[in-house]
């Protein structure tokens, strides 16, 4: 009993707690790596592979960092995938005239603009964020199709600097550092947590809740703009498809975000997100290495997120959960 008590006490010590969190995550990553490595040593787990897994995971980590800002306020957004499509198409179109500058500005500005629209409508119309972003998703998908004129938008090979190291890692790193700084060293971080904790009280303390909610959406979609840059660079092209197919892209960033939320007490959420997405990437690629059909991937995704959430993001007993 004594040992357990001491452990519990240690957990509350801030420094130890942060080591504990990171350690746990790294342990999980190692665990999954080992499992798949043992099961399929030829196809999985070499250093090259790992580098590949990591580089594919950072797209989602970037999105997840953005997602984090609104999730901690209790909000949600279904239009992330649609943003990726729309912003990347805008970026590619602009890149045809302005090269890298076009790509970057196109994706980022489009992203931020979408964020602003989402936040503004949410605040003004007072519709639950989940619902209003479903409608907006439909609209953005259509706009993406319109901008692309139905054509597949291919990124010029000369502009694919962000498709591989060091370009992609650098870009992602900038996002991670930015997210971490904002959370820890600006009012935005504190106020987002405050709003998520008790909105009424936050408002009473003079916090302009609406302003920070809009800001949260802008930040989210700005980071998703970065995600768009990476996505179109990796994929070399983007096709706008309607019919809510963009919903598929919402999923993996969401999972990473939940890692951040769950491990918030223990370490910097950004780190939790990065390692978390890596774990997910390991699992995915592990199954691929095992020869599992791609359809099973979705099954895994769904099951994995369910399990992650069930173990980490539960509401306390007695709370009303809808």
């Amino acid at each position, binding site marked *: 009993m004594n040992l357990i008590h001491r452990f519990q006490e240690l957990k*509350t010590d801030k420094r130890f707690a942060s080591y504990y969190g990171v350690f746990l995550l790294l342990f999980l990553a190692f665990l999954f790596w080992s499992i798949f490595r043992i099961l399929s040593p030829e196809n999985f787990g070499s250093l090259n592979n790992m580098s590949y897994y990591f580089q594919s995971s950072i797209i989602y980590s970037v999105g997840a960092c953005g997602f984090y800002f609104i999730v901690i306020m209790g909000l949600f957004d279904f239009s992330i995938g649609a943003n990726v499509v729309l912003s990347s198409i805008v970026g590619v179109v602009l890149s045809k005239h302005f090269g890298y500058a076009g790509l970057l500005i196109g994706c980022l500005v489009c992203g931020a603009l979408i964020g602003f629209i989402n936040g503004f409508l949410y605040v003004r119309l007072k519709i639950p964020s989940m619902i209003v972003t479903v409608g907006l998703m439909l609209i953005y998908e259509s706009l993406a199709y319109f901008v692309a004129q139905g054509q597949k938008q291919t990124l010029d090979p000369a502009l694919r600097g962000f498709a591989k190291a060091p370009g992609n890692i650098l870009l992602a790193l900038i996002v991670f550092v930015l997210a971490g700084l904002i959370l820890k*060293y*600006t009012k935005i971080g*504190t106020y987002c*947590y405050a709003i998520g*904790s*008790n909105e009424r009280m936050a408002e*009473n303390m003079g*916090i302009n809740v609406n302003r920070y909610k809009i800001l949260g959406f802008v930040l989210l979609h700005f980071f998703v703009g970065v995600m768009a840059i990476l996505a179109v660079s990796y994929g070399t092209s983007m096709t706008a498809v309607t019919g809510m197919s963009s919903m598929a892209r919402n999923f993996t960033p969401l999972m990473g975000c939940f890692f951040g939320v769950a491990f918030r007490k223990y370490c910097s959420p950004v780190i939790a997100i990065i390692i978390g997405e890596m774990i997910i990437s390991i699992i995915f690629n592990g199954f691929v290495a095992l020869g599992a059909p791609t359809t099973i991937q979705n099954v895994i995704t769904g099951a994995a997120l369910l399990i992650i959430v069930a173990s980490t993001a539960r509401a306390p007993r*007695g709370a009303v959960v809808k």
Partner: protein
Amino acid sequence: MAEIILEAQNVSKAFGITQAVNKVSLTFNKGEIRGLIGENGSGKSTFVSMLCGIYPLDEGKFILEGKELNIKNQVEANLNGISIIVQEMGTLSGLTVAENIFLGHESKFVQYGIKNTAAMNREAERLLNEYGFYHINATSMVDHYTFEDRKLIEVVKATYFNPKILVIDETTTALSQHGREELYKHMKRIKEEGNTVIFISHDLSEVIEHCDTISVLRDGELIDTVKSSEVTEDDLKLLMVGRELGSKYYRTDYGEPISHEVVLSVENVSIPGQIENISFNLHKGEILGFGGLSDCGMHELGKAIFGAVYNREGQVMLADGTNIDSIPVAIKNNMAYTSKDRDNESLVSNETIRNNICLPSVSDLAERGMLWSKKLKQFAEKFANMMSVRMANIDQFVFELSGGNKQKVVLARWLGKDSDIIILDSPTRGIDVKVKADIYALMDDLRRKGKSIIMISEEIQELLGMSDRIIIMKDGKISAEFMRDPELSEEDLIKTMI
């Protein structure tokens, strides 16, 4: 010599049809500790809330140091030198101690948008040490600390910038003796620095001991302001309550024996962290009152007996041996419960009066699984009329009713269920005198019909007036038990509560 620092002129506020504060005019001096007392619903909380920017005024104004006060929220109040320590939780979970202390005032530490967290933490740590709260760490999450420690953090938050006016709103009830001593220390310090404290408390002896002057509110109006050195508790009580409450208000009988028949037996009931080893019996036709400070655990006990607490230990048993472990079981066995949180627990506010009255009785009303709306309507109307609910029609939504009428709807539903054991938690809270009298009459009526009532209340007069027996709780345990007696006084009860 006394210099006026704050003047309230004809301040008023109404909520819906309730006039909470009615043209109150008061002056406060520098270097004064002013007690503000009154019964529940007297308007004292609303009054100070307006001062602190929590609610806007309907009418009137506050004049601080000669200038009219124009504030929209707490932070602006702070900037004007006014701060408040609230009754409930005033710190935000998920933030650190330092973040909580400086919430809304981070601009001191912000340069070009970057918040100097290290500097903020250092300053917070310095303040905590200055206050002598060495066990509280500036960088820890506020969630790690107990309610009392979080209150102490609020003390720092509310006083570190030397406010001109500090309002303490019923904070002491939640604090241990040690916590209170800390608070009194700071009140004295503020007074000595020439600033003002407005101290709200139900504990009259505490108020007399630590305040220079005392203002009494009743029904939203100012009754009088007196010097604490010149009054006794009884004087204050008279001012608070006004006219002698007519003997017809509460029960008039004394000396009626309680039946020996036990209808409910509660044995060793505990809720970890809240109540411990509560045991008692409820007799047929008895009104058993529970009293104590608001956090003594009696409210949780009420829920526990009704089966609403999932981690309850111990046993709650009916005369026939049935164990009450969940709400459906309790209701099925003719138990009823009205909560202190009327709008969220006793009622489904967004539903019609009709559905609210019928809901617990729905199984009984169903004919082979079907519920006919005519039958439901008749049922609901019958009991709504029995309680004289003032409504437009039975399909009106409950949230549109006044507090008193809402409570009548709550009681109507249990009358409809014909419950035998009724647990009433704060049944007359926030209700006007006329409806209160109706409810007391109903309780007496039920008692005579052989129904048994557990009444949990923070209003001592009510307990004295209505109960056959009174059990006082303190810190989660039973502290004392009293039998109904015309000689029983408030002091007797209060002594065992604190």
